[in-house]
């Protein structure tokens, strides 16, 4: 398997690199993070104008037909520049769910707006004390006639503060612990009875707690088959995990570069600290881990695009490896910077927090190791 990027893919990579390196420097990023909404609508509009938001949608709905590889290329660069705008939540997750599961009418209402930069999406699934598996959802909704009534609450809904629409995972049948019986419902964030409490997250992004009391939604807002949300979700989750891991790889590569640079400049005991062998070896190990992750990332993207039988196995390996490598690289980037690495002023710690946030979503290392073990027995 040798992955050669197409001309379009190379252009996407170069355009993302060029635009973000010129317009999304760390200082600019920090300004956005410290603003009230910690989200920049001008940036987002530019992402739309550059075609990034459309990239991975089918041509019929106004996209460019990109797949996992395009998602990966863009996500990696978003990771390098620590972009806080919700590409992951709105496009990779929300957009793909709408595009795969919504009726034509809903698609034309929301997807056009999303692709042109005018609609933000959040995926609301996790519940207090139950936030490690989607099958662990208990919030139930009742269906009567052609409408559906929502009651309950969702916690730490990422991009929840900015969201115009929320995709709520809930039960129309079965009980907590079962994969069957889950439905995904599109709800307008300002629908009557839908209340959110917005806040920022440690990685400089936004989220909200949502509560729903007697929120009435047309049955047509159910994405995919009622009671079979997991079927709709599976491929989107897979691509989502790839996207998060690619972002982490971008962050890790920036950390390795910054640490190598810093240790060459920083002098203690009359020489650059990069001369100390223990630090040289540490950085060599950081580099090794980064490249191992990159290999798994490329393989996973390729396998997802080709619906390869091993795609999920490779994905589990990737998420598990990114978890340990991400920690190793981020922890040591701080360690090798010394005191300055623990400050808000340097970008090092912000990469660390983003990597920590990525590690806390869609399965820990232990979770994906277990999944890997299970899949490799098949």
């Amino acid at each position, binding site marked *: 398997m040798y992955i050669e990027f197409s001309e379009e893919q190379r252009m996407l990579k170069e355009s993302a690199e060029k635009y973000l390196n010129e317009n999304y420097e760390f200082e600019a990023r920090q300004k956005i993070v410290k603003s009230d909404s910690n989200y920049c609508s001008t940036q987002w509009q530019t992402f739309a104008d550059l075609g990034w938001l459309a990239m991975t949608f089918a041509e019929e709905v106004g996209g460019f037909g990109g797949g996992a590889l395009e998602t990966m290329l863009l996500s990696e660069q978003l990771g390098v520049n620590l972009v806080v705008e919700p590409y992951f939540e709105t496009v990779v997750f929300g957009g793909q769910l709408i595009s795969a599961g919504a009726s034509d009418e809903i698609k034309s209402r929301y997807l056009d707006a999303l692709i042109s930069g005018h609609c933000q999406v959040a995926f609301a699934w996790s519940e207090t*004390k139950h936030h490690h*598996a989607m099958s662990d959802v208990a919030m139930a909704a009742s269906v009567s006639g052609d409408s559906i009534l929502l009651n309950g609450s969702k916690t*730490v809904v990422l991009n929840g503060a900015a969201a115009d629409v929320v995709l709520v995972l809930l039960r129309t049948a079965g009980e907590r612990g079962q994969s069957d019986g889950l439905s995904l419902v599109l709800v307008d964030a300002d629908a009557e009875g839908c209340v959110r409490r917005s806040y920022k997250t440690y990685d400089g992004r936004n989220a909200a707690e949502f509560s729903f009391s007697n929120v009435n939604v047309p049955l047509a807002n159910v994405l995919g088959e009622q009671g079979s949300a997991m079927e709709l979700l599976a491929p989107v989750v897979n691509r989502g995990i790839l996207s998060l891991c690619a972002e982490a790889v971008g962050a890790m590569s920036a950390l390795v570069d910054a640490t190598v640079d810093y240790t060459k400049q920083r002098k203690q005991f009359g020489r650059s600290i990069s001369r100390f062998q223990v630090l040289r070896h540490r950085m060599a190990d950081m580099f090794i881990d980064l490249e191992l992750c990159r290999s798994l990332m490329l393989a996973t993207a390729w396998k997802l695009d080709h619906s390869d039988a091993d795609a999920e196995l490779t994905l589990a390996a990737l998420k598990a490896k990114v978890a340990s490598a991400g920690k190793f690289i981020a922890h040591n980037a701080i360690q090798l910077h010394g005191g300055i690495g623990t400050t808000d002023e340097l970008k090092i710690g912000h990469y660390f927090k983003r990597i920590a946030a990525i590690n806390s979503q869609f*399965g*820990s290392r232990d979770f994906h190791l277990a999944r890997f073990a299970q899949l490799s027995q098949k």
Partner: protein
Amino acid sequence: MNDNNFRAEVRAFLQEELTPELKRAGELMTSVFADFDATMAWHRKLYQKGWVAPDWPEAYGGTGWTLNQRYIFQEECKLSNAPALLPMGLQMLGPMLIHYGSDEQKAHYLPRLLSGEDVWCQGYSEPGAGSDLASLSTSAVRDGDDYLINGSKIWTSYAQHSNKIFCLVRTSKEGAPQAGISFILVDMDTDGITVEPIVGLDGRVEQCQVFFDGVRVPVANLVGEENQGWEVAKYLLEFERGGHNFTIDHKKQMAKIRKQASEEYDADGCLWRDNSVFNARFAEVAVDALALEYTELRIKGALNAGGNPGALSSLCKIVGTETGQRFNEISMDILGPQALPFQIAALEPDFEGELIVADYALTCMPEYINNRAATIYGGSAEIQRDIIAKRVLGL
């Protein structure tokens, strides 16, 4: 008094004096420091009881307790969530002054330190002098009966709350760098001192940069002789590095993880405490914590017999901090996305609003973040390993 009776006496005192507000400050600790006001309120209570400096000789205000009793006291305080006292004065400066200070210095500074009237910060590190402390360049130049100090100190913990700072300054450029350093006590409100806060990764301020611009300090504020400061500084560092019982920190961390694991559910919808992978991982770290506990006890035994911990204190610093960091990682995995909400206002003990996530989730991320510094300050993990290599293994 036997240890059990002693423990009962400590518990009775804590029961009485550790108010809910003070406990809250202890619960909300996300680094080695607690909320400043709560810390000093607790400091004064212990002072009134005569228990503020158990590690000091009795003649200077210590308690005369045995090592065991001192350990029990620390353990009971920590596990009942008392806010930690500031170590810069009580653990570092005090014992050093007792050893090196002049009679006037002892008579003047020690009582004020004990009562909490003076709050001290530690001015060692500089932008250009971290691990290589001896290369420090903040200068003190003799001018009559004063020194004129110029330069800056960085990473000075709680400088924003302190009225005094003890500093290492350069009084000579002759000979080895260590030979031109002096130890001096400075009033923070002297003209020419400015304090710039440094925002940490958790979004809060604990460290500062302190600038000295022609700061005039009496020569009488030197501790020890001019150019003898390195010896004084090293004596103080022994107290900074030794004397800390990491085991007690680990017990507090383990109690918190057990609580999380008995309330939160894993991906199979089972409580974490019934998850065998989690249990194995937790046990693996707990085994290292236990091995460290017995190492600390061994050191205590050696001290009791009049010995010296030597390089074992480097071992404790390495294993103590790295084990603590591993516990943080376990908590992060249990809490998943629940660790992400950024609600720093709720980390203030007097916060009365509504929490976004459970109490034990609120502190998880900032603890994880702040604890990365534990392998950097007080001699980094690399420097400590070097000490073992050189002093123990003779390399």
